[in-house]
């Protein structure tokens, strides 16, 4: 029997009289990776922000493991639904401070070994005491990922985690995240602009256009819909 970790029903968000996203429905099985694609302003980030409850839906519902997320305490929900933002937005001072931040909010102090293990996962072993000011873009992106993973989320939301990186670094981080998702069996939603990246990653695809669902299906959608190639860049 397949279990759906996430179910989204008729989800919509309106802001200042404009629908940013409307009538979005999909479900995501545990352990699967869904790629969300769409042109700028199509509502991709809005969708992730609602799943993490940084924004409130104007219509519809989101069920996490069968439970409406509005009935869950926001802090507990956000720990379970981890989000890696487009920009790392690291906190001062050290890398280790960032890794410890999430667990510390619920009174859990990560040991030095825990921090090192998480940093090793993202290829930054020995970086714990380094100041965040001395990190490159790629290193900051890795710290941001490790910081989210420290909360042991059930669902991982990745908002264009490689968008700010150059091509080579982007491929490196993509391979790293994809490997981690596969090894740990994470359920994840990954926003990307790159069709080729989507093809490499996706098990399930949601195409958005002007805030609406244009198509929902398997990776074959990316092969069929030739208009995607022109629109996503």
């Amino acid at each position, binding site marked *: 029997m397949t279990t759906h970790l996430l179910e989204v029903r008729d989800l919509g968000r309106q802001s200042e009289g404009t629908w940013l996203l409307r009538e979005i429905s999909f479900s995501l099985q545990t352990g699967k990776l869904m790629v969300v694609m769409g042109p700028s302003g199509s509502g991709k980030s809005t969708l992730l922000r609602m799943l993490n409850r*940084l924004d409130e839906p104007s219509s519809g519902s989101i069920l996490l493991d069968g439970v409406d997320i509005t009935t869950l305490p*926001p*802090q507990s929900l956000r*720990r379970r639904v*981890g989000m890696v933002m487009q920009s*790392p937005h690291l906190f001062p001072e050290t890398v280790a401070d960032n890794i410890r931040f999430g667990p510390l*909010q*619920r009174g859990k102090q990560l040991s030095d070994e825990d921090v090192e293990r998480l940093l090793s996962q993202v290829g930054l072993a020995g970086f714990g005491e380094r100041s965040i000011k001395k990190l490159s873009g790629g290193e900051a992106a890795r710290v941001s990922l490790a910081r989210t993973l420290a909360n042991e989320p059930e669902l991982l939301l990745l908002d264009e985690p490689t968008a700010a990186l150059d091509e080579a670094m982007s491929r490196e981080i993509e391979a790293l995240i994809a490997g981690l998702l596969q090894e740990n069996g994470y359920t994840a939603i990954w926003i990307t602009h790159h069709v080729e990246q989507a093809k490499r990653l996706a098990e399930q695809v949601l195409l958005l256009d002007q805030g609406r669902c244009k198509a929902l299906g398997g990776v074959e959608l990316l092969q069929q819909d030739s208009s995607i190639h022109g629109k996503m860049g």
Partner: protein
Amino acid sequence: MIHYITQDPLWVRIFQASGTMLLVFLALFVAHRFGIKLLREGGLALLRGLLQVVGVGLLLVAVFRGPSWLAPIVLLCMMGIGTQIASSRVHKLPRTRTIIFSSILLSVGVSLVLTLALGIIETRSTAMIPIGSMMIANAMNTISLALERLQGEIKSHTGQIEAALSLGASPAQAIAPMIQTAVQASLIPRIDTMRSLGIVWIPGLMTGMLLGGEDPLRSALYQFVIVALILGVGAFASLSAVLMLRPALFNQAEQLLEN
């Protein structure tokens, strides 16, 4: 030079005020030539200040001669006007008027009651009103600085606040660094005042006491009491304002509201 023209003390003061205003206008005009557009705002503030202080002088004559219960009413009015001025600087933040008034009332009220009870300040109107007004003005400035800084910090660190929320932090935890920065920044001028007291400047109250023939040591100690009080009131006012504002920056779902 003024004394050659008139010996009337009131006219002497009017000449002094006019001379000072000319000096300020000259400074504002020079600044204007360098593209610093303060001529209108600065000029209006100067005229407003003159009219207000003369008005208050006339009012105080009546208050000092009247019953003692008039003093708290005058102070409450000053708090109301202080609230209006401070809130105009941070009008985009929610519930600012209520928060600023409550913070001034709380910080000045508690400090006044304590200092009156301990006998640090005398209960007569001639002591309570000028010292109370200094507390109110400084509370107003400190709150204004704190809220303005907090507004700026939130704007420039929205991503960091939301990153903290997305990791399961409570609103209070997510915004704690911005609150600390805002309160610290608001108190820097007060701390600098305390550090430079007597060395860089001799404040108005002490100057007035010295000119009035008071003993320098007693004047100095009294001035210290007032500056220390102002620092204490400022710290209390600034902290209470940002803490009162904090819940209004987030909604029930612990989402950061746009400000």
